[in-house]
């Protein structure tokens, strides 16, 4: 006699294993990517209103609540960066003939590029202001 039994998928499936939870946190990083993008639009908009408006905006952002919020956001952005770089060699494997370039090499190369870009960003910001 055939009477297949279907087990329901629990709504909390993403709490069942650390890998699933980490995946959910990775996806949640999208909220902060959106947030920081919109924050930057606000920053430029305030700058457009003049030096005084910009100073007031940055003064508000000095509040401990804002700083804490941005630190949490930074942590999620770093999770995004870490997971994105880690999966890049899977998405776009680099081959030299039959040989695959080791994942570690590609991951390290991305972090080096990040380091260079970061230094340029800070130097530009500090030098021009």
């Amino acid at each position: 006699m055939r009477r297949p039994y279907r087990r329901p998928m629990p709504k909390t499936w993403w709490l069942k294993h650390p890998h699933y939870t980490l995946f959910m946190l990775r996806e949640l990083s999208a909220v902060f990517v959106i947030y920081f993008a919109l924050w930057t639009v606000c920053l430029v908009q305030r700058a457009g209103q003049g030096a005084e408006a910009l100073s007031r905006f940055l003064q508000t952002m000095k509040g401990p609540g804002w700083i804490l919020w941005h630190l949490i956001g930074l942590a999620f952005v770093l999770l995004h960066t870490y997971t994105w770089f880690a999966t890049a060699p899977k998405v776009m494997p680099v081959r030299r003939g039959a040989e695959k370039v080791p994942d570690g090499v590609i991951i390290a190369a991305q972090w080096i590029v990040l380091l260079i870009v970061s230094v340029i960003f800070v130097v530009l910001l500090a030098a021009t202001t």
Partner: protein
Amino acid sequence: MARSNEPAVWSLFAGGGALTALILPVHALALTILLPLGVIEADSEKLVAFLGHPLFRLYMFVLALLGLFHGAHRLRFTLIDLGLHALATPITWLCYGGATIGSLVALWVAVSF
């Protein structure tokens, strides 16, 4: 089954993922934390000139466009997978619609500086 038009949004998602992975750590640290705290000292007038520079405004627009579509794409799948399968179509419209409006606002801010 027919081929999906998903590449249209996935390419924006992937581009946004790569750009934000690379630039957003230093961007968030420097602009949203170190600058308000005064660790990076900046003269207000010079800062206005820096943020208003055409290259920074272009960067801001690209970051908004790709970042918003990257975020919208992930948010769409996450909301659906958290149990809102029945609302998949409105969620899809809301996510990409929001990203489009956000990008247009960013474009307007960049152009009207």
